[in-house]
Protein backbone atom coordinates (compact mmCIF):
# COMPACT_ATOMS: atom_id res chain seq x y z
CA UNK A 1 0.00 0.00 0.00
CA UNK A 2 2.79 2.36 0.92
CA UNK A 3 4.56 1.48 -2.31
CA UNK A 4 1.44 2.35 -4.24
CA UNK A 5 1.13 5.86 -2.74
CA UNK A 6 4.84 6.35 -3.41
CA UNK A 7 4.22 5.44 -7.04
CA UNK A 8 1.30 7.87 -7.20
CA UNK A 9 3.43 10.65 -5.77
CA UNK A 10 5.92 10.09 -8.57
CA UNK A 11 3.21 11.27 -10.91
CA UNK A 12 2.97 14.64 -9.24
CA UNK A 13 5.40 17.23 -10.66
CA UNK A 14 5.63 19.41 -7.50
CA UNK A 15 6.44 16.39 -5.37
CA UNK A 16 9.08 15.14 -7.79
CA UNK A 17 10.50 18.64 -8.14
CA UNK A 18 10.90 18.95 -4.38
CA UNK A 19 12.33 15.45 -4.17
CA UNK A 20 14.85 16.21 -6.91
CA UNK A 21 15.90 19.43 -5.24
CA UNK A 22 16.36 17.73 -1.88
CA UNK A 23 18.38 14.77 -3.18
CA UNK A 24 20.61 16.34 -5.86
CA UNK A 25 23.36 17.47 -3.41
CA UNK A 26 23.38 14.08 -1.70
CA UNK A 27 23.90 12.11 -4.90
CA UNK A 28 26.29 14.70 -6.26
CA UNK A 29 28.29 14.83 -3.06
CA UNK A 30 28.48 11.07 -2.75
CA UNK A 31 29.57 10.83 -6.39
CA UNK A 32 32.38 13.35 -5.83
CA UNK A 33 33.70 11.63 -2.70
CA UNK A 34 33.42 8.12 -4.13
CA UNK A 35 35.04 9.22 -7.38
CA UNK A 36 38.03 10.71 -5.54
CA UNK A 37 38.52 7.59 -3.45
CA UNK A 38 38.15 5.33 -6.49
CA UNK A 39 40.56 7.47 -8.50
CA UNK A 40 43.13 7.23 -5.73
CA UNK A 41 42.55 3.50 -5.51
CA UNK A 42 42.74 3.06 -9.25
CA UNK A 43 45.62 5.36 -10.12
CA UNK A 44 47.81 4.94 -7.03
CA UNK A 45 46.96 1.88 -4.99
CA UNK A 46 46.17 -0.62 -7.74
CA UNK A 47 49.23 -2.38 -9.16
CA UNK A 48 50.07 -1.97 -12.84
CA UNK A 49 48.81 -4.69 -15.14
CA UNK A 50 51.47 -7.25 -16.04
CA UNK A 51 50.68 -6.92 -19.75
CA UNK A 52 49.19 -3.49 -20.31
CA UNK A 53 51.26 -1.75 -17.63
CA UNK A 54 49.71 1.55 -16.61
CA UNK A 55 47.58 1.85 -19.71
CA UNK A 56 45.03 -0.50 -18.17
CA UNK A 57 44.05 2.27 -15.76
CA UNK A 58 41.83 3.64 -18.49
CA UNK A 59 39.40 0.94 -17.42
CA UNK A 60 38.43 3.05 -14.41
CA UNK A 61 36.74 5.58 -16.66
CA UNK A 62 36.01 3.45 -19.68
CA UNK A 63 34.17 0.51 -18.16
CA UNK A 64 31.82 2.50 -15.88
CA UNK A 65 30.83 4.88 -18.68
CA UNK A 66 30.24 1.98 -21.04
CA UNK A 67 28.08 0.13 -18.50
CA UNK A 68 26.14 3.25 -17.71
CA UNK A 69 25.54 4.14 -21.35
CA UNK A 70 23.49 0.97 -21.69
CA UNK A 71 21.91 1.25 -18.25
CA UNK A 72 20.77 4.80 -18.99
CA UNK A 73 19.19 3.63 -22.22
CA UNK A 74 17.26 0.99 -20.27
CA UNK A 75 16.25 3.57 -17.67
CA UNK A 76 15.06 5.84 -20.45
CA UNK A 77 13.06 3.06 -22.09
CA UNK A 78 11.46 2.05 -18.79
CA UNK A 79 10.56 5.66 -18.02
CA UNK A 80 9.16 6.03 -21.54
CA UNK A 81 7.10 2.85 -21.16
CA UNK A 82 5.76 4.01 -17.80
CA UNK A 83 4.84 7.31 -19.43
CA UNK A 84 3.05 5.55 -22.27
CA UNK A 85 1.19 3.05 -20.12
CA UNK A 86 0.17 5.20 -17.15
CA UNK A 87 0.23 8.52 -19.03
CA UNK A 88 2.56 9.97 -16.46
CA UNK A 89 3.97 13.33 -17.50
CA UNK A 90 6.84 13.09 -15.04
CA UNK A 91 7.97 9.80 -16.57
CA UNK A 92 8.13 11.40 -20.00
CA UNK A 93 10.12 14.27 -18.53
CA UNK A 94 12.50 11.77 -16.93
CA UNK A 95 12.98 9.95 -20.25
CA UNK A 96 13.67 13.25 -21.97
CA UNK A 97 16.20 14.11 -19.28
CA UNK A 98 17.96 10.73 -19.63
CA UNK A 99 18.70 10.94 -23.35
CA UNK A 100 21.42 13.61 -23.50
CA UNK A 101 23.17 12.20 -20.43
CA UNK A 102 23.15 8.74 -21.93
CA UNK A 103 24.43 10.05 -25.24
CA UNK A 104 27.32 11.80 -23.50
CA UNK A 105 28.17 8.70 -21.49
CA UNK A 106 28.26 6.80 -24.77
CA UNK A 107 30.56 9.43 -26.27
CA UNK A 108 32.76 9.20 -23.17
CA UNK A 109 32.89 5.41 -23.43
CA UNK A 110 33.80 5.61 -27.12
CA UNK A 111 36.34 8.37 -26.55
CA UNK A 112 38.12 6.65 -23.68
CA UNK A 113 37.94 3.40 -25.63
CA UNK A 114 39.69 5.05 -28.58
CA UNK A 115 42.38 6.54 -26.35
CA UNK A 116 42.88 3.14 -24.80
CA UNK A 117 42.83 1.41 -28.16
CA UNK A 118 45.68 3.46 -29.58
CA UNK A 119 48.42 2.08 -27.29
CA UNK A 120 46.86 -1.39 -26.98
CA UNK A 121 45.70 -2.18 -30.50
CA UNK A 122 47.78 0.39 -32.35
CA UNK A 123 44.73 2.10 -33.79
CA UNK A 124 42.11 4.49 -32.50
CA UNK A 125 39.36 2.49 -34.05
CA UNK A 126 38.97 -1.18 -34.83
CA UNK A 127 35.70 -2.80 -35.82
CA UNK A 128 35.42 -4.76 -32.64
CA UNK A 129 31.86 -5.90 -31.86
CA UNK A 130 31.73 -4.03 -28.59
CA UNK A 131 32.89 -0.79 -30.15
CA UNK A 132 30.46 -1.17 -33.00
CA UNK A 133 27.53 -1.94 -30.71
CA UNK A 134 28.40 1.13 -28.64
CA UNK A 135 28.49 3.27 -31.78
CA UNK A 136 25.07 2.00 -32.83
CA UNK A 137 23.83 2.82 -29.34
CA UNK A 138 25.03 6.39 -29.85
CA UNK A 139 23.07 6.55 -33.11
CA UNK A 140 19.99 5.28 -31.26
CA UNK A 141 20.33 8.09 -28.72
CA UNK A 142 20.76 10.63 -31.50
CA UNK A 143 17.70 9.31 -33.33
CA UNK A 144 15.67 9.52 -30.12
CA UNK A 145 16.72 13.10 -29.48
CA UNK A 146 16.20 13.99 -33.13
CA UNK A 147 12.64 12.70 -33.06
CA UNK A 148 11.95 14.61 -29.86
CA UNK A 149 13.33 17.80 -31.37
CA UNK A 150 11.52 17.26 -34.67
CA UNK A 151 8.00 17.22 -33.25
CA UNK A 152 6.72 20.55 -32.07
CA UNK A 153 3.78 19.49 -29.93
CA UNK A 154 5.41 18.39 -26.63
CA UNK A 155 2.75 15.81 -25.77
CA UNK A 156 3.09 14.23 -29.20
CA UNK A 157 6.88 14.34 -29.00
CA UNK A 158 6.71 12.57 -25.63
CA UNK A 159 4.59 9.72 -26.91
CA UNK A 160 6.31 9.28 -30.26
CA UNK A 161 9.77 9.22 -28.71
CA UNK A 162 8.51 6.83 -26.03
CA UNK A 163 7.40 4.36 -28.71
CA UNK A 164 10.83 4.71 -30.31
CA UNK A 165 12.60 4.10 -27.00
CA UNK A 166 10.57 0.94 -26.41
CA UNK A 167 11.17 -0.31 -29.97
CA UNK A 168 14.85 0.48 -29.47
CA UNK A 169 15.12 -1.53 -26.26
CA UNK A 170 13.61 -4.56 -28.00
CA UNK A 171 16.22 -4.09 -30.70
CA UNK A 172 19.27 -3.59 -28.47
CA UNK A 173 19.82 -7.31 -27.73
CA UNK A 174 19.30 -8.16 -31.40
CA UNK A 175 21.82 -5.53 -32.45
CA UNK A 176 24.27 -6.81 -29.85
CA UNK A 177 23.83 -10.38 -31.04
CA UNK A 178 24.08 -9.54 -34.71
CA UNK A 179 27.20 -7.46 -34.22
CA UNK A 180 28.85 -10.24 -32.22
CA UNK A 181 27.92 -12.72 -34.90
CA UNK A 182 29.13 -10.42 -37.64
CA UNK A 183 32.51 -10.04 -36.07
CA UNK A 184 32.96 -13.69 -35.21
CA UNK A 185 32.88 -14.26 -38.98
CA UNK A 186 35.15 -11.41 -39.90
CA UNK A 187 37.56 -12.14 -37.07
CA UNK A 188 41.07 -11.34 -38.16
CA UNK A 189 44.11 -12.61 -36.35
CA UNK A 190 45.02 -9.44 -34.52
CA UNK A 191 45.33 -8.37 -30.94
CA UNK A 192 41.70 -7.36 -30.90
CA UNK A 193 40.93 -10.05 -28.40
CA UNK A 194 41.90 -8.64 -25.10
CA UNK A 195 42.99 -11.42 -22.81
CA UNK A 196 40.59 -11.27 -19.91
CA UNK A 197 42.89 -11.17 -16.93
CA UNK A 198 41.24 -12.38 -13.78
CA UNK A 199 41.17 -9.14 -11.97
CA UNK A 200 43.08 -8.70 -8.78
CA UNK A 201 41.12 -7.49 -5.77
CA UNK A 202 43.28 -4.35 -5.55
CA UNK A 203 42.33 -3.53 -9.10
CA UNK A 204 38.70 -4.53 -8.77
CA UNK A 205 37.41 -2.52 -5.82
CA UNK A 206 38.26 0.88 -7.33
CA UNK A 207 36.48 -0.19 -10.50
CA UNK A 208 33.32 -1.17 -8.66
CA UNK A 209 33.46 1.96 -6.53
CA UNK A 210 33.95 4.04 -9.65
CA UNK A 211 30.88 2.43 -11.15
CA UNK A 212 28.82 3.33 -8.09
CA UNK A 213 30.26 6.85 -8.20
CA UNK A 214 29.39 7.31 -11.86
CA UNK A 215 25.90 5.91 -11.29
CA UNK A 216 25.41 8.37 -8.45
CA UNK A 217 26.72 11.15 -10.67
CA UNK A 218 24.21 10.12 -13.32
CA UNK A 219 21.37 10.30 -10.81
CA UNK A 220 22.49 13.76 -9.65
CA UNK A 221 22.63 15.09 -13.20
CA UNK A 222 19.34 13.38 -14.02
CA UNK A 223 17.65 15.09 -11.07
CA UNK A 224 18.97 18.48 -12.17
CA UNK A 225 17.86 17.96 -15.75
CA UNK A 226 14.52 16.61 -14.55
CA UNK A 227 13.97 19.80 -12.55
CA UNK A 228 14.79 21.93 -15.58
CA UNK A 229 12.51 19.79 -17.70
CA UNK A 230 9.66 20.12 -15.18
CA UNK A 231 10.15 23.89 -14.94
CA UNK A 232 9.93 24.19 -18.70
CA UNK A 233 6.91 21.95 -19.05
CA UNK A 234 4.95 23.29 -16.09
CA UNK A 235 5.90 26.93 -16.53
CA UNK A 236 2.25 27.96 -16.48
CA UNK A 237 1.34 25.92 -13.40
CA UNK A 238 0.70 27.68 -10.12
CA UNK A 239 2.91 25.39 -8.05
CA UNK A 240 6.00 26.70 -9.83
CA UNK A 241 5.37 30.15 -8.41
CA UNK A 242 4.95 28.75 -4.91
CA UNK A 243 8.08 26.63 -5.11
CA UNK A 244 10.29 29.33 -6.53
CA UNK A 245 9.08 32.24 -4.40
Amino acid sequence: MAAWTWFHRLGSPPHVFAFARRWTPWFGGFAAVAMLIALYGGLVLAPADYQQKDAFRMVYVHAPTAWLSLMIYSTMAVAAAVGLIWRMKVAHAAAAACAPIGAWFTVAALGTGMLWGKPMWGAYWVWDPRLTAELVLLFLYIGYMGLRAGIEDPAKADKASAVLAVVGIVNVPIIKFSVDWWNSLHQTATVMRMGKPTMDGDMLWPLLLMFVAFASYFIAILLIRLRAELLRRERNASWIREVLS
Partner: protein
Amino acid sequence: MKTGSLTAARLVAMRDLRLAFRKPSQLLQPLVFFLIVATLFPLTLTPELSRLRDAAPGVLWVGALLSSLLALEFLFRDDAVDGTLEQFALSGQSLTWMLFAKTCTHWLLTGLPLALAAPVAAVGLGVPGESMFGVVASLALGSFALSLLGAIGAGLTLGARRGGVLLSLLTLPLAVPILIFGARATELAINGADIAAPMYLLGAIAVLGLTLAPLAAAAAVRIGLE
Protein backbone atom coordinates in the same frame (compact mmCIF):
# COMPACT_ATOMS: atom_id res chain seq x y z
CA MET B 1 -22.90 -5.66 -40.36
CA LYS B 2 -19.40 -5.11 -39.15
CA THR B 3 -16.72 -6.01 -41.64
CA GLY B 4 -13.98 -8.32 -40.38
CA SER B 5 -10.43 -7.09 -39.85
CA LEU B 6 -9.13 -9.29 -42.62
CA THR B 7 -11.68 -7.98 -45.09
CA ALA B 8 -10.74 -4.43 -44.16
CA ALA B 9 -7.07 -5.30 -44.61
CA ARG B 10 -7.77 -6.83 -48.02
CA LEU B 11 -9.71 -3.76 -49.12
CA VAL B 12 -6.90 -1.46 -47.99
CA ALA B 13 -4.39 -3.56 -49.89
CA MET B 14 -6.53 -3.49 -53.06
CA ARG B 15 -6.92 0.26 -52.77
CA ASP B 16 -3.18 0.81 -52.36
CA LEU B 17 -2.36 -1.42 -55.32
CA ARG B 18 -4.86 0.41 -57.52
CA LEU B 19 -3.55 3.82 -56.45
CA ALA B 20 0.05 2.76 -56.99
CA PHE B 21 -0.56 1.55 -60.53
CA ARG B 22 -2.15 4.87 -61.40
CA LYS B 23 1.12 6.64 -60.49
CA PRO B 24 3.76 4.28 -61.85
CA SER B 25 6.55 6.86 -61.68
CA GLN B 26 6.46 6.73 -57.88
CA LEU B 27 7.02 2.99 -58.10
CA LEU B 28 9.93 3.26 -60.47
CA GLN B 29 11.85 6.00 -58.70
CA PRO B 30 13.27 3.93 -55.79
CA LEU B 31 14.17 1.21 -58.27
CA VAL B 32 16.05 3.59 -60.56
CA PHE B 33 17.70 5.14 -57.52
CA PHE B 34 18.94 1.70 -56.47
CA LEU B 35 20.38 1.02 -59.92
CA ILE B 36 22.09 4.42 -60.03
CA VAL B 37 23.66 3.87 -56.60
CA ALA B 38 24.94 0.49 -57.79
CA THR B 39 26.41 2.18 -60.86
CA LEU B 40 28.27 4.72 -58.76
CA PHE B 41 30.42 2.09 -57.07
CA PRO B 42 32.29 0.82 -60.14
CA LEU B 43 32.91 4.47 -61.01
CA THR B 44 34.33 5.30 -57.59
CA LEU B 45 35.95 2.03 -56.48
CA THR B 46 37.33 0.19 -59.48
CA PRO B 47 36.01 -1.19 -62.76
CA GLU B 48 37.69 -4.55 -62.07
CA LEU B 49 34.98 -7.19 -61.70
CA SER B 50 37.02 -9.37 -59.37
CA ARG B 51 37.37 -6.56 -56.86
CA LEU B 52 33.80 -5.37 -57.32
CA ARG B 53 32.60 -8.86 -56.51
CA ASP B 54 34.04 -8.54 -53.00
CA ALA B 55 32.22 -5.25 -52.51
CA ALA B 56 28.99 -6.48 -54.12
CA PRO B 57 27.11 -7.55 -50.95
CA GLY B 58 27.78 -4.20 -49.32
CA VAL B 59 26.87 -2.25 -52.42
CA LEU B 60 23.66 -4.17 -52.99
CA TRP B 61 22.55 -3.96 -49.38
CA VAL B 62 23.40 -0.36 -48.71
CA GLY B 63 21.75 0.55 -52.01
CA ALA B 64 18.66 -1.46 -51.10
CA LEU B 65 18.51 0.08 -47.64
CA LEU B 66 18.79 3.65 -48.93
CA SER B 67 16.27 3.09 -51.66
CA SER B 68 13.79 1.47 -49.29
CA LEU B 69 14.19 4.45 -46.94
CA LEU B 70 13.41 6.70 -49.87
CA ALA B 71 10.29 4.70 -50.61
CA LEU B 72 9.22 4.54 -46.96
CA GLU B 73 8.53 8.23 -46.95
CA PHE B 74 5.52 7.64 -49.17
CA LEU B 75 4.20 4.78 -47.05
CA PHE B 76 1.91 6.89 -44.86
CA ARG B 77 2.58 10.49 -45.86
CA ASP B 78 0.11 10.92 -48.72
CA ASP B 79 -2.64 9.23 -46.75
CA ALA B 80 -1.88 11.33 -43.69
CA VAL B 81 -2.00 14.55 -45.70
CA ASP B 82 -5.34 13.89 -47.37
CA GLY B 83 -6.94 12.53 -44.20
CA THR B 84 -7.27 8.92 -45.27
CA LEU B 85 -5.35 7.67 -42.24
CA GLU B 86 -7.67 9.62 -39.98
CA GLN B 87 -10.63 7.88 -41.58
CA PHE B 88 -8.89 4.55 -41.04
CA ALA B 89 -8.41 5.35 -37.38
CA LEU B 90 -12.04 6.44 -36.99
CA SER B 91 -13.50 3.56 -38.98
CA GLY B 92 -13.75 1.27 -35.96
CA GLN B 93 -11.70 -1.32 -37.78
CA SER B 94 -8.40 -2.56 -36.43
CA LEU B 95 -5.83 0.07 -37.41
CA THR B 96 -3.10 -2.51 -36.84
CA TRP B 97 -4.48 -4.77 -39.56
CA MET B 98 -5.04 -1.95 -42.02
CA LEU B 99 -1.54 -0.58 -41.56
CA PHE B 100 -0.13 -4.09 -41.80
CA ALA B 101 -1.92 -4.44 -45.15
CA LYS B 102 -0.47 -1.12 -46.25
CA THR B 103 3.02 -2.23 -45.23
CA CYS B 104 2.74 -5.55 -47.06
CA THR B 105 1.47 -3.81 -50.18
CA HIS B 106 4.29 -1.33 -49.90
CA TRP B 107 6.77 -4.19 -49.83
CA LEU B 108 5.09 -5.82 -52.83
CA LEU B 109 5.43 -2.57 -54.74
CA THR B 110 8.95 -1.53 -53.68
CA GLY B 111 10.89 -4.25 -51.83
CA LEU B 112 10.00 -7.16 -54.08
CA PRO B 113 10.68 -5.32 -57.38
CA LEU B 114 13.97 -4.16 -55.91
CA ALA B 115 14.96 -7.74 -55.07
CA LEU B 116 13.93 -8.85 -58.55
CA ALA B 117 15.91 -6.03 -60.16
CA ALA B 118 18.98 -6.75 -58.03
CA PRO B 119 20.43 -9.29 -60.52
CA VAL B 120 20.77 -6.48 -63.07
CA ALA B 121 22.95 -4.54 -60.65
CA ALA B 122 24.65 -7.74 -59.47
CA VAL B 123 25.75 -8.74 -62.95
CA GLY B 124 27.40 -5.38 -63.29
CA LEU B 125 29.23 -6.02 -60.04
CA GLY B 126 30.64 -9.31 -61.28
CA VAL B 127 28.33 -11.64 -59.35
CA PRO B 128 28.19 -15.03 -61.08
CA GLY B 129 24.86 -16.11 -62.56
CA GLU B 130 24.39 -19.17 -60.35
CA SER B 131 24.41 -16.99 -57.20
CA MET B 132 21.46 -14.90 -58.31
CA PHE B 133 18.84 -16.98 -56.53
CA GLY B 134 20.53 -16.37 -53.17
CA VAL B 135 20.93 -12.67 -53.91
CA VAL B 136 17.26 -12.27 -54.78
CA ALA B 137 16.03 -14.43 -51.88
CA SER B 138 18.09 -12.60 -49.27
CA LEU B 139 17.09 -9.18 -50.57
CA ALA B 140 13.43 -10.15 -50.77
CA LEU B 141 13.32 -11.41 -47.19
CA GLY B 142 15.50 -8.58 -45.88
CA SER B 143 13.48 -5.86 -47.58
CA PHE B 144 10.31 -7.33 -46.08
CA ALA B 145 11.83 -7.05 -42.60
CA LEU B 146 12.97 -3.52 -43.49
CA SER B 147 9.47 -2.52 -44.58
CA LEU B 148 8.01 -3.78 -41.30
CA LEU B 149 10.62 -1.92 -39.28
CA GLY B 150 10.37 1.16 -41.44
CA ALA B 151 6.60 1.33 -40.93
CA ILE B 152 7.26 2.17 -37.27
CA GLY B 153 9.63 4.97 -38.24
CA ALA B 154 7.27 6.25 -40.93
CA GLY B 155 4.46 6.35 -38.37
CA LEU B 156 6.59 8.09 -35.77
CA THR B 157 7.77 10.82 -38.12
CA LEU B 158 4.24 11.67 -39.32
CA GLY B 159 4.00 14.55 -36.90
CA ALA B 160 7.55 15.77 -37.45
CA ARG B 161 9.02 18.51 -39.55
CA ARG B 162 11.61 17.34 -42.10
CA GLY B 163 10.32 13.82 -41.64
CA GLY B 164 12.54 12.34 -44.33
CA VAL B 165 15.93 12.90 -42.72
CA LEU B 166 14.53 12.00 -39.34
CA LEU B 167 13.09 8.78 -40.72
CA SER B 168 16.55 7.69 -41.87
CA LEU B 169 18.09 8.73 -38.56
CA LEU B 170 15.60 6.59 -36.63
CA THR B 171 15.50 3.59 -38.89
CA LEU B 172 19.14 3.08 -39.87
CA PRO B 173 20.49 2.09 -36.43
CA LEU B 174 17.57 -0.26 -35.90
CA ALA B 175 18.19 -1.82 -39.31
CA VAL B 176 21.75 -2.87 -38.42
CA PRO B 177 20.86 -6.53 -37.71
CA ILE B 178 18.93 -6.88 -40.98
CA LEU B 179 21.84 -5.37 -42.84
CA ILE B 180 24.39 -7.66 -41.21
CA PHE B 181 22.49 -10.91 -41.80
CA GLY B 182 21.30 -9.87 -45.24
CA ALA B 183 24.72 -8.84 -46.49
CA ARG B 184 26.17 -12.02 -45.03
CA ALA B 185 23.61 -14.16 -46.88
CA THR B 186 24.39 -12.34 -50.13
CA GLU B 187 28.11 -12.75 -49.56
CA LEU B 188 27.71 -16.48 -48.98
CA ALA B 189 25.54 -16.75 -52.09
CA ILE B 190 28.17 -14.98 -54.18
CA ASN B 191 30.85 -17.34 -52.89
CA GLY B 192 28.62 -20.28 -53.73
CA ALA B 193 28.15 -21.34 -50.12
CA ASP B 194 25.07 -22.40 -48.17
CA ILE B 195 23.05 -19.35 -47.14
CA ALA B 196 20.71 -21.17 -44.76
CA ALA B 197 22.14 -19.83 -41.47
CA PRO B 198 21.85 -16.08 -42.15
CA MET B 199 18.55 -16.65 -43.95
CA TYR B 200 17.09 -18.32 -40.85
CA LEU B 201 18.23 -15.39 -38.73
CA LEU B 202 16.83 -12.93 -41.24
CA GLY B 203 13.59 -14.93 -41.18
CA ALA B 204 13.55 -14.80 -37.39
CA ILE B 205 13.87 -11.01 -37.50
CA ALA B 206 11.11 -10.83 -40.10
CA VAL B 207 8.82 -12.97 -37.91
CA LEU B 208 9.56 -10.82 -34.88
CA GLY B 209 8.78 -7.79 -37.03
CA LEU B 210 5.56 -9.42 -38.23
CA THR B 211 4.34 -9.95 -34.69
CA LEU B 212 5.38 -6.66 -33.09
CA ALA B 213 5.96 -4.02 -35.75
CA PRO B 214 2.34 -3.57 -36.91
CA LEU B 215 1.28 -2.96 -33.31
CA ALA B 216 4.03 -0.39 -32.80
CA ALA B 217 3.29 1.21 -36.18
CA ALA B 218 -0.40 1.53 -35.31
CA ALA B 219 0.47 3.12 -31.96
CA ALA B 220 2.86 5.49 -33.74
CA VAL B 221 0.32 6.51 -36.37
CA ARG B 222 -2.32 7.09 -33.70
CA ILE B 223 0.06 9.44 -31.88
CA GLY B 224 0.83 11.21 -35.15
CA LEU B 225 -2.84 11.73 -35.88
CA GLU B 226 -3.82 13.16 -32.51
